[in-house]
């Protein structure tokens, strides 16, 4: 039978002592880098913050002259880049608490609020907690397919999945709204697994944030622009669209590439620190590229390192990656990385492939663990 999820063969099975040693080596990388944090990282994140403020304000200012096509193009481009960097290199990373050690009130993980339709607290709950703790565990990590898409054979096929290429396209263009509604678990409510009353209880902050974002980009700034109402509105919409598609692409490449693995809930029982590291490694995939690419992806191109060390300042992931990939090589673990084109193509392939039912439907990616053995 065709292996539905190939990477099992790419990884050497590790004995429990090996897993422990593997975890200890990854801990050592973490300790080395965390101990070396200092003025460089502090300056860096403040520089990123300044970049965001200049590009966003500059973009909005240029759009006020938006009847002139070059101004509109320049303004929209500036604002798009500003929003991308704010959401990814600044917002996402700060909200992980990567810069809490700076003691800077504006860069505090538990209070930072980003320029995104998703309420910061909802994000901190389902992303920082659920997704980062239960990464790629089917049925627990709701980021696997975002409750809409079927991306792995272990997810049950339903006829609706036939349309998922279109749904994926819609999710890409409206990504921030998908993210904004994600914590409400609407699909669970539709299936009757969650009470609508509980959904309603979660609504107020979601609605508040949505109103703020819509009001800001589609009412206040266009009105402030007066005669340039329309170009500003269109520029803001384009910037949001650009950021949505970019964020969707980077994030889907992080966990749904060809060799990304999923896990059954039984994997979580008594999982050791080493096993946790292994799951993070096997469920994540990196994107190779230049410095600018890593910057624009918020260093989520180093998804593996991000999942091993979610609270490490992302600017140091490239540094960690050198050692992590070498450790993986020594332990015979596949280090999933590739250029954006290749990785994204494999994500698209997955979206199409699993829109159809498979013959071996319903089988888990991995069976239950044999005693004393961890399939790695």
């Amino acid at each position, binding site marked *: 039978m065709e292996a539905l999820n190939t990477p099992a063969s790419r990884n050497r099975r590790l004995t429990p002592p090996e897993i422990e040693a593997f975890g200890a080596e990854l801990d050592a990388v973490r300790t080395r880098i965390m101990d070396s944090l200092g003025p460089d990282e*502090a300056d860096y994140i403040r520089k990123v913050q300044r970049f965001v403020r200049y590009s966003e304000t500059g973009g909005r200012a240029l759009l006020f002259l938006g009847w002139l096509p070059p101004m509109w193009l320049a303004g929209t481009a500036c604002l798009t880049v500003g929003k991308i960097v704010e959401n990814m290199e600044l917002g996402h990373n700060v909200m992980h608490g990567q810069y809490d050690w700076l003691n800077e009130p*504006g860069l505090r993980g538990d209070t930072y609020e980003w320029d995104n339709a998703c309420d910061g607290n909802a994000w901190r709950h389902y992303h920082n907690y659920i997704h*980062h703790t239960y990464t790629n565990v089917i049925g627990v990590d709701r980021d696997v397919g975002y409750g809409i898409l079927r991306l792995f054979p272990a997810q049950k096929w339903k006829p609706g999945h036939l349309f998922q290429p279109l749904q994926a396209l819609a999710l890409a263009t409206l990504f921030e709204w998908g993210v904004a509604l994600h914590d409400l678990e609407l699909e669970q409510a539709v299936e009757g697994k969650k009470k609508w009353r509980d959904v309603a209880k979660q609504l107020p902050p979601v609605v508040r944030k949505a109103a703020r974002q819509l009001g800001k980009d589609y009412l206040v700034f266009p009105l402030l622009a007066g005669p340039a109402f329309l170009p500003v509105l269109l520029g803001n919409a384009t910037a949001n669209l650009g950021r949505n598609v970019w964020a969707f692409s980077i994030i889907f490449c992080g966990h749904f590439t060809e060799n990304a693995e999923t896990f059954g809930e039984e994997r979580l029982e008594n999982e050791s620190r080493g096993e946790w590291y292994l799951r993070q490694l096997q469920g994540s995939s990196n994107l190779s590229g230049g410095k600018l690419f890593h910057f624009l992806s918020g260093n989520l191109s180093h998804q593996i390192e991000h999942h091993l060390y979610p609270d490490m300042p992302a600017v140091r992931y490239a540094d960690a990656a050198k050692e992590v990939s070498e450790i993986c090589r020594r332990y015979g673990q596949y280090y999933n990385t590739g250029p954006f084109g290749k990785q994204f193509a494999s994500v698209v392939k997955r979206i199409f492939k699993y829109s159809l039912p498979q013959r071996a439907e319903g089988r888990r990616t991995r069976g239950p663990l044999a005693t004393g053995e961890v399939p790695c």
Partner: protein
Amino acid sequence: MLPVFAPGTRRLKRWIDPDWADFWLSHVSRTIRISRTLARVEKIRQETADMKQFVLRPNANWRSFLPGQCVPVRVLIDGVRHERYYSLTGAPGEPTLSFAVKRQKGGRVSTFLHERVRVGDVVEIGEAAGDFVLPAAPAPLLFVAGGSGITPVFSLLRAAVAVDAAVDVTLLYYARGEADFAFRADIERLAGDAPGVRAHFVAETDGPSRQLSGRFTEAHLRRLVPDYANRLTYVCGPAGLMQAVEDHWRRHELLASLRQERFGTPKQTGKPATHAPVSFRRSQRTTVHTGSSLLETAEEAGLRPAYGCRMGICRTCVCTKVDGVVRDRVTGETDEADNTRIRLCVSEPVGPVTLDI
């Protein structure tokens, strides 16, 4: 002149992100801000060999203070924001504020303030805090100060005289040597002007013309302030002095008339301590550490702090550690700084800890 951001500011803040506005304001002014209180250093006076007084002009966000209170001073050292509380030494209502800093051996912030800060530099300050303040109703007073403990006491002394020129107040001021008395000239001038103020300077080592020397003893009290039992007493200074005064007042059942101001508690380092006292400031509860993590201890005390992964990943349980030393169970690192953010689920106390939950 600093423009005053009056009542409209609050409404403005709801619409404009104050951080964003302050960022753009920083391009036109070094101190004008919507939300932060920034202050420009106007004067630095060397009080003693190891104490400097800083006089600063704050922006319009500065709210006044009560004499005896302290203020958090925030400085950026190697990109990291550090905060320490210093007693305010000026008088309320002045356009400037002042605080005095004793240079601590190995102290990051005091060393930075002594060595790096110059006239013209800008530092951030917070809101004044503390209940080491004058009583609402006038009463005969005794101030006992040791070393840098003079800073809040000097402020109290001056305020007491300002409120009532005939106030009956005695100051016992202990320092290491004759050259170590800060604000001496100011205090002597006050004593000269106000007939009810008596100031005694006691050096630990013998001075040339000293009748008194050494550390605080009961004999000093009996000789210099025979009616001390009838006075409301304020003490601030090194741990030894504080303890000696407290013991004496306790023995004579006078604790109700003793006000104490401590400058931090000695840090305990080393092994994690089960049964270390843990105080939850916001819930106003104290307990001893019994769980494996502070999160468990908090839960056992009946608190319900937010948590997520319980393994140090998601930071849902992050809270402010007001003071005390904790150890990270995963990395083994100890954290000794005050007002830092810690993960409850992987932290255990090394000594007494106060948490803001």
